[in-house]
């Protein structure tokens, strides 16, 4: 059978998942390099573009992986992702902010960054527990609405003037309200600058060498720093991936998958299912907090707008495209979402307007369609290009519906790992026992039809 040959091929290549992810990333890079060349960007700008794509992919991948633990493996529909990220990021920012930040900043506790990050994760986990403890026994759709409401409560809280500045046990601190709170200095900068918070004071030795090398290629200093931080982020993606793969392959993970498939069965086998669900929910929230810190916390300013509920839906779309229940799928979904849905349309519209050479776009929709009367589509096209931000969301919606209608399991969802540790459908008794449960073919089709 062809499937056996494909399996042989996979075994020979080795880690096919890595090949898949790299393949998708290379395709994305090729696409955006082509965009850059066609737009006439220099080498430096193209590197900067690719860096942004990689950064966003890695950031989404972190959150998608955390969500996959909750939804893909335990079946907990959490649509308050942005809220839990906000809890992590704001806690970190408040803990690490300098007690004396100057006139515009928000004072904090001035603790080391590591303490801030751990504190942020802990806070996110605790808030996760606060929501999960009562809500976990509710129906899946109720849990969804409760988590969404929770996310909104958090956003309202950090946006409000009440918490803009408060004093805790004599300490002056706060969230900064709608103006936001400053993020900590990125530790990556210490590699390049003698004073990380002020680049003007000089470079370190390594900084000098690397900046000169990249500068010769036309890549500017900030891009080099961002590039380095993106590498750190990629390291965390690998860390998340390994951690989650280990969790879901453990006996604990098997129980989770059993709960996802049929909670009653898991319960009647003597598993304390709500405890498993609460622990999973809290772990996922802690990882979302960490992901949020690595992503939004790396910006110089943290504002409530960064945690719009839409962000949660983006993460969901990335996970759904990749296929929930598959970690590799989640990473690929993140790359596809960022490349094709998030940044792709923007570049495509720039490209079209560059080459078409339209006169200025009409300001309003009626003006744009007025041309249609005389069969002139140019105003409408120009207007569409200028409103690409809105059209991008329409595209996201269309893709979401198409995926749900045509392939609800996502690109790699057919590899959703089955709840059983040993494959009951395996015919070949000499099969490789160490083979990962995610690498199976026909068995999953059976599990899938059971679960849908």
């Amino acid at each position: 059978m062809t499937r056996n040959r494909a399996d042989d091929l996979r075994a020979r290549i080795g880690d096919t998942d890595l090949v898949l992810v790299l393949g998708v990333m290379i395709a994305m890079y090729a696409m955006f390099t082509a965009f850059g060349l066609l737009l006439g960007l220099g080498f430096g700008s193209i590197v900067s573009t690719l860096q942004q794509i990689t950064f966003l992919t890695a950031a989404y991948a972190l959150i998608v992986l955390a969500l996959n633990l909750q939804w893909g493996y335990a079946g907990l529909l959490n649509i308050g992702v942005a809220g839990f990220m906000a809890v992590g990021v704001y806690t970190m920012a408040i803990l690490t902010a300098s007690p004396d930040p100057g006139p515009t900043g928000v004072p904090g506790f001035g603790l080391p960054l590591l303490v801030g990050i751990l504190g942020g994760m802990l806070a996110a986990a605790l808030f996760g527990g606060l929501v999960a403890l009562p809500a976990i026994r509710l129906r899946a759709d109720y849990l969804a609405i409760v988590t969404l409401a929770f996310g909104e409560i958090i956003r309202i809280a950090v946006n409000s003037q009440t918490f803009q500045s408060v004093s805790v046990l004599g300490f002056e601190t706060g969230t900064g309200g709608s103006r936001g709170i400053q993020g900590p200095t990125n530790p990556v900068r210490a590699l390049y600058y003698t004073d990380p918070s002020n680049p003007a004071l000089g470079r370190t030795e390594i900084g000098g060498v690397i900046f000169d090398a990249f500068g010769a290629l036309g890549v500017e200093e900030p891009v080099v720093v961002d590039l380095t931080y993106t590498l750190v982020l990629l390291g965390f993606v690998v860390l998340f991936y390994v951690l989650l793969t280990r969790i879901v392959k453990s006996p604990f993970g098997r129980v989770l998958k059993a709960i996802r498939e049929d909670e009653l069965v898991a319960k009647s086998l003597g598993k304390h299912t709500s405890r498993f669900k609460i622990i999973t929910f809290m772990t996922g929230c802690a990882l979302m907090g960490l992901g949020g810190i690595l992503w939004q916390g790396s910006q110089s300013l943290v504002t409530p707008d960064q945690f719009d509920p839409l962000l949660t839906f983006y993460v969901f779309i990335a996970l759904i495209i990749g296929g929930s229940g598959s970690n590799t799928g989640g990473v690929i979904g993140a790359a596809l979402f960022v490349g094709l849905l998030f940044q792709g349309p923007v570049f495509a519209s720039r490209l079209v307007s560059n080459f078409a050479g339209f006169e200025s776009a009409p300001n309003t929709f009626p003006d744009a369609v007025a041309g249609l009367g005389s069969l002139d589509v140019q105003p409408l096209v120009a207007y569409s290009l200028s409103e690409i931000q809105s059209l991008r969301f329409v595209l996201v919606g269309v893709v979401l519906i198409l995926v749900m209608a045509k392939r609800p399991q996502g690109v790699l969802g057919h590899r959703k790992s089955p709840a059983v540790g040993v494959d009951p459908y395996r015919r070949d008794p000499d099969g490789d026992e160490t083979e990962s449960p995610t690498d199976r073919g026909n068995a999953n089709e059976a599990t899938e039809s059971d679960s849908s």
Partner: protein
Amino acid sequence: MNIATLLAGGRTRLGSHFFELLVGVGLAVLLFDLLRRLVTDTLRVFDLFLFVKEGIVLGLVIGLAGIGLALTYSILHFPNFAHGDYITMGAFAGWVVSYVIAGLGSFDLRDLFLIGVRGDAGGVAVGTSVVQTPVAIVTGLLVAIAFTILATILIDRVIYRPMRDEGVITLLITSVGVALILRYSIAFVWGQETTTLTANSRPQFTAPGIGVQVSTHELTLVACTLVLIAGIHYLIQQTKLGTAMRAMADNPDLAAITGIPTERVVLATWIIAGGATGAAGYLVGLETGILAFNTGWTLLLLIFAAVILGGVGSIYGAIFGGLVIGIVSNVALVWIPSDFTTAAAFLVMIVVLLVKPKGLFEGVTTA
């Protein structure tokens, strides 16, 4: 996990009434504090009445918008996240017609189409209000209802119908896709700014004895909502269609087996839900006087809160839940700053889910 076991243990010891007891004590404390404030005059009676009036108006808006959501939730068995954008859609459709009727001749048709989001034809300039332009308002309301019905049927035919047998989560996520398409199509055409719809809502009436003022637009909203609720009540309780709908909400398989034409009932459900939703959208615009591409989306969570509060599937529950949410989020101003009123409404929903996971109208479906 220790907390979980502790809580579980506490529940068994105190019976299943642990949360009820807690909520009861909390309510008693709040009520006592409210009385104390009234007696010590830190809260004026007038203010309290004002909060309650604002709460009832907001509550009826949420309740009316919630009817459509409750109907589709109970009969199609999924929470429609596009519901908020159906509201926005109805509002835009209706108000464009109102503007065209009210301002034809004195304004450019293109500007009227943009209903003041861009261009010269702003609400004050066109002078739309119930008293000044009654024909435009009534026509607009009818168009909002008709347009939303047609659009919901179209969306059902193209998107939801082929997925009828899918699970609740699949449909939920699909509806998020529908929501994004609708919301940003509206943003594409009308932009992302907020527009002022109405010229004014005068004359105002003063309620005798209380001194709270009620505007014409608020009265219109209350009257329309009551008429619509009565109509839907008649439809569901007194007609054969209503019986079929209640049967489907209760047990879809049994309903199909007894020969109820389920697809036709679904169609009727969308028609009723779409009509109520379109009307709600238009009336929200009339009462608040403002409209933006995300008006419905921001209302959606409150509507969900109301529907869940009442117990999914009951239209009376939805209206009652709407009133609770509306009054809570306004009376909460007695204790908390105005930033947090929405948060208070969500908190009430979460608390109700803890005490009565099936809602206040537990076990009643579309009846």
